């Protein structure tokens, strides 16, 4: 279970990076990516995945 970022829609604002409770999100090249091995979909941390909650572009942080 993990989320991913649709790179073509990402504004590279970086909000998801600092909201992620498991530090699964990092800059790679010129966009952010989610490390699927670290992503727990915020289970045990928050009610909903934080990257999708804060992302300014609809349907950009989505379930793999």
């Amino acid at each position, binding site marked *: 279970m993990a989320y991913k970022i649709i790179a073509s829609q990402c504004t*590279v604002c970086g*909000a998801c990076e*600092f*909201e992620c409770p498991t530090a699964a999100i990092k800059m790679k090249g010129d966009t952010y990516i989610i490390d699927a091995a670290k992503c727990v979909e915020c289970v045990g941390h928050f009610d909903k995945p934080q990257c999708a909650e804060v992302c*300014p572009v609809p349907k950009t942080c989505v379930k793999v």
Partner: protein
Amino acid sequence: MSGQLVAFDDLFNDASQATLRSEIPSSGCSSSSCGSSAGPGDMPPEVWAKIKDHPCYSEEAHHYFARMHVAVAPACNIQCNYCNRKYDCANESRPGVVSEKLTPDQALRKVVTVANEVPQLSVLGIAGPGDACYDWKKTKATFEAVSREITDIKLCISTNGLALPDHVDELAAMNVDHVTITINMVDPEIGTKIYPWIYFRNRRYTGLEASQILHERQMQGLEMLTSRGILTKINSVMIPGVNDEHLKVVNAEVKKRGAFLHNIMPLISDPAHGTHYGLTGQRGPTHAELKALQDACAGGANLMRHCRQCRADAVGLLGEDRGQEFTLDQLPNAVHYDPAKREAYRELVASERGDHVAAKTRAAAELKENADRAILVAIATKGGGRINEHFGHAREFQVYEAGRDGVKFIGHRKVEDTYCLGGFGEDATLDSVIRTLEGVDAVLCSKVGDCPRKDLAKAGIAVTDAYAFDYIEAAIASYYASEHAVPVQALSA
């Protein structure tokens, strides 16, 4: 670099001082009666000390001083219907637009480079492109690094207010003494038409609840700033049919909570920007609608009328943008701050601004005695508080109202395409300039050709270059006297 102000240079023989003189604004805003009231005599000395070099807060300062924004804070915690942060264009000037985002280290290099080359620089602001208080770590790291290097630079932030209460104490500790909060409503029902969602305490809120939380946090933040003596400016976006009438209530509410200035800005709306308002055909206000609302707020919180709604990476005087001269690829890898140029410039400005204030005061006194009706006068200026731009080169006109209340700055009118390019006036463009000047009685500029003079006359607008290089307010008072045959002595400084 900056253009010449002939009248200044003639006064000085010393070459180095003449060079510095030429740095006194080559373009930008030269308004009066906007920002806060006129000068040191009108407010407590501690407040004047805070605003006297801040171009966005002080009428006096923005004749002479420049600000720069560094785009270190791209993350945002709310969505506004007038904003689409995916959009980016180097040729566009509006809030939230940037060409390149910077890390705090890159921002430090940029600020030092600008400080070494632009002696007018007095303020470093962080205005996004997201929210400076939400993207706090980067904002804080940038302020700390820059203020270590340039100890006298003023720090300033702009925020939507949602995260503001969490950082007020840190702002105070870092000597940030100017904060702008964008407040578009004090009624959450109206907020639902402006804010589709907010992200707060790890959760997304929508609808009325979102606007309720945002409203409470904005009021709390404003009160906290006021109680710590931090000057607060309130920005409001005027959205016809949504919050236009309501902004009078906003004005009264923010004044009650200690806001220093209220800046009512027109909505910028275009389908090409990809914003919700742009795509749904929500229009912005006309010049007349904006002025009517600003006038209706007179007596409440002081109004700022010289805002240019600048980019989150703007560099220079208000009304000019030198950001393209300082892009990352042009910055040196290692920078060292040299205070000499900024210090010398400050000394010079101290004497020049005294003369300007005196000329303005005389103009106001004469008009008070003699004016019968109010007229609108458009000014072509490159800055420095003087009439020093050709009609055909003006990228904007500063509009003043002259009447019994003296000479008051009303706002600026942007020119889409400058009329005169390489010496050839274009008829089609002249028509659009004339439309831009709708409602204006006269234009004062440093030079104007016969052809535009005739066309302007046909449109009922007088134009003259008789006051070239005079101080704006004094020239307007003299013009008023000559047109109305009242005994005002020549006031041109």
